[in-house]
C-alpha cells in the first residue's frame, strides 16, 4: 500500500523530531520561561564556581572597620595577615563582609537545599503515590491518611518541631524541609496514576502477561512524569523559601554561614541606616523564586500532551 500523502505529511513537518526537540520547541515559545531558565542557570553557575570568585574564609571573616560599606566603594581589608584594597561591588554588611560574595556562597547553600530536599521528596512521594494509586485498597488508605495528617500540620511549624527536637543543623534542616515536601508528590502521583491505570494500554500490558513492576515502571510512571516535573520545579522554589524563612527565624543555617535568610535576619536591624544590606539578599531570594516559578509554568505548558501538535 503506497501512500504519498503520508510521506508528504511527514516531509511537511520537516525532519522527525525527537521527544526532547519537540519539548524544547514548545518551551522556547514562552519567553518568560526562557528568562527564568537563564536566571536559574546563572545561579547554578554561581553556586558551582563560588570559590573561584570569593573564598569561603574571606566572606565569613569580619572586617569591622568596613561595616556598612556602600556599594561600589573600595576599602582596605586585612585578610590572612595581608592588607589589601578591596572593591565592594554590593557593599558590606554589619560585620564588613562582602555582600556579593555572601550572596554567591548563599546561592550554593540554597541550591543544595532546593535540589536535595526535592529529590528526596520526589522519589519517596512518587513511589508512595504510585503504589497507593496502583494497588488501592488498604495500602492506599494507609498512605493517603498519613499524608493527610502531614498536610494538616503547617509546613513551617513541622520544620520548627523537627529542628527544635533534633537541634538546628544543616542535615536536620534538609530533613525537615524534605519531609514536608512529600505530600504534594504523593497526591499528584496518585491522581495521575489513577487516570493512567484505567487506560486500555495498561490492560493490554496485563493481557500480554507483564508483571506489576513492569507495568508500573514502564507504562504508568513515564506517563505520569509531566506533572511531577512541574511540581518538582515549583517545589524547589518552595523549599528554598522555607529554608530562608527558618534561617531568618534562627532555626536553619547557623551564622556565620552566608545563608540568604541569615543575611536578611542580620540586616533587618539596620534597614533604615544601611538598606543595601537588606536589599540585595532580598533581591536574590526574589529572583530565584520567581525564576523557578516561571520555569514551572513553562514546563506545564510545554509538557501538556493536550497541546500536542
Amino acid at each position: 500500500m503506497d501512500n504519498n500523502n503520508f510521506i508528504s505529511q511527514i516531509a511537511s513537518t520537516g525532519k522527525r523530531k525527537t521527544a526532547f526537540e519537540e519539548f524544547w520547541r514548545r518551551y522556547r515559545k514562552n519567553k518568560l520561561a526562557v528568562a527564568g531558565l537563564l536566571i536559574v542557570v546563572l545561579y547554578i553557575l554561581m553556586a558551582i564556581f563560588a570559590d573561584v570568585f570569593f573564598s569561603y574564609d574571606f566572606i565569613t571573616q569580619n572586617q569591622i572597620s568596613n561595616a556598612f560599606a556602600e556599594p561600589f566603594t573600595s576599602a582596605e581589608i586585612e585578610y590572612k595577615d595581608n592588607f589589601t584594597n578591596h572593591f565592594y561591588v554590593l557593599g558590606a554588611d554589619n560585620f564588613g563582609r562582602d555582600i556579593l560574595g555572601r550572596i554567591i556562597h548563599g546561592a550554593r547553600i540554597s541550591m543544595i537545599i532546593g535540589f536535595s530536599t526535592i529529590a528526596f521528596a520526589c522519589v519517596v512521594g512518587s513511589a508512595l503515590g504510585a503504589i497507593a494509586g496502583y494497588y488501592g485498597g488498604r495500602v492506599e488508605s494507609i498512605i493517603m491518611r498519613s499524608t493527610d495528617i502531614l498536610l494538616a500540620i503547617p509546613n513551617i511549624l513541622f520544620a520548627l518541631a523537627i529542628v527544635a527536637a533534633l537541634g538546628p543543623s544543616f542535615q536536620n534542616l534538609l530533613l525537615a524541609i524534605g519531609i514536608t515536601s512529600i505530600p504534594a508528590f504523593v497526591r499528584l502521583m496518585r491522581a495521575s496514576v489513577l487516570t493512567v491505570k484505567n487506560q486500555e494500554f495498561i490492560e493490554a500490558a496485563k493481557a500480554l502477561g507483564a508483571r506489576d513492576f513492569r507495568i508500573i515502571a514502564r507504562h504508568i510512571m513515564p506517563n505520569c512524569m509531566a506533572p511531577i516535573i512541574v511540581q518538582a520545579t515549583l517545589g524547589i522554589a518552595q523549599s528554598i523559601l522555607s529554608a530562608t524563612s527558618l534561617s531568618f527565624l534562627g532555626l536553619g543555617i547557623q551564622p556565620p554561614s552566608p545563608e540568604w535568610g541569615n543575611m536578611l535576619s542580620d540586616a533587618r536591624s539596620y534597614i533604615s541606616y544601611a538598606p543595601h544590606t537588606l536589599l540585595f539578599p532580598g533581591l536574590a531570594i526574589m529572583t530565584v523564586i520567581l525564576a523557578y516559578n516561571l520555569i514551572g509554568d513553562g514546563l506545564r505548558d510545554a509538557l501538556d500532551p493536550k497541546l500536542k501538535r
Partner: protein
Amino acid sequence: MNNHSDMIPILQVKNLKKYFTTPRGMLHAVDDVSFAIQEGKTLGVVGESGCGKTTTGRAILRLIEPTSGSVVFNGIDITSLEKNKLRIMREKMQIIFQDPYSSLDPRMSVASIIAEPLIIHKRVSGKKELLKQVQKLMEMVELEDRLSSSYPHELDGGRRQRIGIARALALEPQFIVCDEPVSSLDVSVQAQILNLMQDLQDRLGLTYMFVTHDMAVVKHISDEIAVMYLGQIIELSPAKDLFAHQYHPYSHALISAIPKIESKTDETMTILKGEIGSPIEPKPGCRFALRCEYCIEKCLTDTPVFKTIESGRAVACWRAEELSL
C-alpha cells in the same frame, strides 16, 4: 484440521458470571453465560451497550476476575490457574482493543510496542533477532517499515489498529478476543482492517471472539453469533441462519432496526418500546419481557431456559417455537 479438533472446542465457557458490587445492589454484568468456540472459527457477540459483551470478553481472559463459572481453554480450566501459570497461558490468548488511541502507550515507539510481548516472555535472544521479529510482524499487518520509530499519535486510526493487531499476534496466540476492533474507524479503513483480520485468521488458523454492536460487521465476519441482552445470551445461532430468521423477539428487533441503504425500513421495522432495563438485582422472569410485544404472563414470572431448538441454534424465550419472526 482433523476430526478430533472438530469435536472438542478450543474454548468452552460454562456458566460464567461476573457480578459487581454497587451502592444500589449487585450488578449482574454477565449472568450465567455458556458457549463454545471451535478452532479456527469466529464467534460474534453482539448486543447494545450494557449487555455485558465486553465484560464477557475480559472475564474469559481473566483481565476481570469472573465471579463464578469455568473457562476451559485447550482442556485447561483457566479460572483456577494461579498467577504465574496464567501468565504463560496469556501467550495463547490475546486481545485487540476498541480504541487504538488509548490502547497504545503514547510514550513508546511503534517498534517497542510490538516488541514488548517478545521481551516479556523472553521469546528472543539478542537485539538482532528482536528487530527481525518485529519487522516480520509489521509486515504481517502491512505496516510500512519506516514507521517503526514513529509514535502512535503520529499515525492514523487504521495504522494504530494494525499496531494493536501486531502486538496481539507477537506471541503466536491461538485465540483472540476482538473487542470492537473496527468501531472507531472510518468505513473505508474499517474494510481494510476486517479483510486483514480475515486473512490472518486463514493464514494462522486463529480463533476469534468478535465483540461488537455493529450487526452488519458481525454478520460479515462471524461463523456463529451470540446475541446478548442484559448479561445473558438470549440467542445463539450460525450467522447466516440468524439473519434469515430469528427465534428471539429481541434479536428480531435488533436486526430490523439496522438502517438499510436500499430501502426505507419504516414499514418493516419493529421499533422497540422503552429502553434497556437495569442490570442491578434483576427480578426473575425474562429480562426482555417489558419491552417485548409478545410477552405473556409466564414471561414475567419464570426465567426462560436457554435451550437448543434446532441443530446449532439455541434460544432463551418461552414462545420461541410458536412465534415466527
